[in-house]
């Protein structure tokens, strides 16, 4: 096929390694990685290559698009896409984009792609529908714009039973709704079927082609690729090495140690157990005009060392004070108390530490802390008030 004439088909899976981007717990792939996957599954994409430094740039052969590789919707409107009709425009485009910042995101790679002769733009995606607990197909004959801005009556939606999977009848429904002729329709059905395979086999949360371009000579080609994978599936995708340029060094360190940790811009360090209780602690601090420095969930462990390590992480964020809020269950309150005492000694902490402990083994916990000069609270709200007050007193 003419498309693939100048494209590198050296195992796309290898190209993808080490450059995945984690956003929270999903893996949000750059366009060029998404297209590598599409190629591997036989979804037509334009010929393209990645440029990281100017010497990667090849000689101009035909009209091209220079696309900055950043995770941002509306790249074109933000100046992240340039068109090149000759060698000079190609060089200028690359020079202008590479190393620049677009809406705060650094462009370290650009994709040079054959310009398509566009007749029409369509939209197609498969995503997780949380409330239906199912894959969900969305397709429209109005593509190239955000799907949210397309009128409802022009959008085809279809829930898929994950046990039945995709079958051709779904494609026929979509093609009829979109009013595609038989030539485009058969191409569309083939793309949709392959897209479903990608969604399923690569454990995706979202696969989106917007726009799906109909060229002047009647071919359907994926002009963009958005792929988000589920990080909980990584045991099935072991060749993927996860690196996240958007995470702070401390968040990466916490992640490698197995903590759910988010850095925030306040000054009160937070250690709690359970995601819900940790969030509730941050909410209560915020409502009391306190500013959390971080979200740290100890998780369901029962180990003194883990508490000490959590303190080490939070101390690295240099908060003015530390609030510990524990509801003992699997994590016993006395284990946490011992951890607090050990951390205080190990790191010689002089900052205010305010502790609230309830639940399993709370009496033992209270004794341990009292012996070591910490007066714990048994209810959450007095502890919140206390830590906000004491933090406010610090210069």
């Amino acid at each position: 096929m003419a498309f693939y004439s100048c494209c590198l088909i050296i195992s796309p899976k290898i190209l993808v390694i080490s450059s995945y981007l984690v956003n929270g717990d999903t893996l949000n792939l750059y366009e060029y990685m998404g297209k590598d996957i599409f190629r591997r599954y036989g979804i037509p994409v334009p010929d393209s290559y990645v440029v990281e430094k100017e010497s990667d740039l090849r000689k101009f052969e035909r009209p091209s698009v220079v696309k900055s590789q950043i995770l941002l919707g509306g790249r074109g409107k933000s100046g992240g896409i340039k068109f090149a009709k000759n060698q000079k425009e190609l060089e200028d485009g690359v020079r202008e984009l590479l190393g620049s910042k677009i809406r705060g995101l650094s462009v370290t790679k650009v994709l040079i792609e054959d310009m398509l002769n566009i007749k029409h733009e369509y939209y197609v995606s498969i995503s997780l529908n949380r409330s239906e607990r199912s894959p969900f197909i969305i397709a429209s004959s109005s593509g190239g714009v955000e799907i949210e801005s397309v009128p409802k009556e022009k959008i085809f939606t279809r829930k898929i039973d994950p046990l039945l999977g995709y079958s051709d009848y779904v494609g026929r429904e979509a093609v009829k709704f979109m009013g595609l002729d038989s030539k485009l329709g058969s191409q569309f059905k083939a793309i949709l079927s392959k897209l479903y395979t990608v969604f399923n086999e690569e454990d995706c949360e979202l696969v989106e082609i917007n726009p799906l371009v109909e060229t002047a000579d009647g071919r359907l080609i994926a002009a963009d690729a958005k792929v988000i994978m589920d990080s909980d599936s990584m045991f099935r995708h072991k060749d993927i090495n996860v690196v996240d340029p958007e995470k702070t060094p401390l968040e990466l360190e916490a992640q490698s140690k197995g903590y759910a940790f988010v850095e925030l811009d306040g000054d009160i360090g937070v250690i709690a157990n359970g995601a819900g209780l940790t969030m509730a602690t941050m909410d209560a601090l915020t409502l009391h005009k306190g500013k959390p420095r971080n979200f740290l969930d100890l998780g369901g462990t029962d180990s003194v060392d883990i508490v000490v390590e959590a303190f080490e992480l939070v101390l690295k964020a240099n908060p003015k004070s530390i609030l510990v809020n524990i509801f003992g269950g699997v994590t016993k309150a006395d284990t946490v108390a011992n951890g607090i005492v050990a951390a205080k000694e190990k790191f010689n902490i002089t900052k205010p530490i305010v502790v609230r402990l309830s639940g399993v083994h709370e009496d033992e916990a209270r004794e341990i802390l009292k012996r070591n000069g910490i007066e714990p609270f048994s209810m959450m709200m007095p502890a919140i008030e206390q830590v906000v007050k004491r933090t406010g007193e610090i210069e």
Partner: protein
Amino acid sequence: MSVLVNKNTRVIVQGITGHQGAFHAGEMLKFGTKLVGGTSPGKGGTMFQNDVPIFDSVADAMSQNPDATMISVAAPFVRDAAFEAIDQGIKIVYILTEHVPFHDTMEIVHEASHRGITVLGPNGPGITVPGQCKIGIMPNQIFRNGDVAVASRSGTLTYEIVYSITHAGFGESVVIGLGGDPVVGLTFVDVLKMFEKDEATKKIVLVGEIGGNNEERAAEYIKAHVSKKVVAYITGRSAPPGKRMGHAGAIIEKGVGTAESKIKAFESAGVPVAEYPVNVPDLLK
């Protein structure tokens, strides 16, 4: 009558010899749960705490006529364990495990629903009917028999709120943890239907969090179908958008799933929303 489980519910634990499985099986026994067996491939024929028989497979454990199972195996093995239980027709499948790929959960939940099987979790604390049956990891000592039904997407935050409810002099008819993942077996609407029917339940507490639209759907349902008093608490008001707050399901995406939207939906359905967890019992008065 109680919700989903009662004092006669016969329970097995899949993965009963693992660290978590063994600990929680022991706690369930102390609670008074009718724990009738466990599974651990290769350890069939041995006993748990000299009292509970261990089997190699769920097929073998069916000799104990279990009504419910708790799955406590590592995430990559959850799909297999759940299918094993579903294939044997166990009516309640509770998955404790965290970090199960949601593609696996989708399949589990769909197969279960086709067969009339209830899935609890993944990544939730389970279910407790005080004085009768506990399946899961909630601390034994926070409950008191009463008429308040609690459903939550969290673990420890549920304990915090149940503790406040008990401490304020109320008691619980049932406490259900839905799970913190984007795909879980039960929604708030599913449990509201059960709570509305349950004679032991007079009041309902929903503990929601950011992410998805489970709470908004519940609010719509309450308006049309729930006659009992409902109060709520929503966590994640201070969470930044785009970041997952511990739970895989707790994330604000494209403006969807904010705490404001959920609070507004509940309030417009006449459901008061507590500012702090400790205020929940005040709203029940």
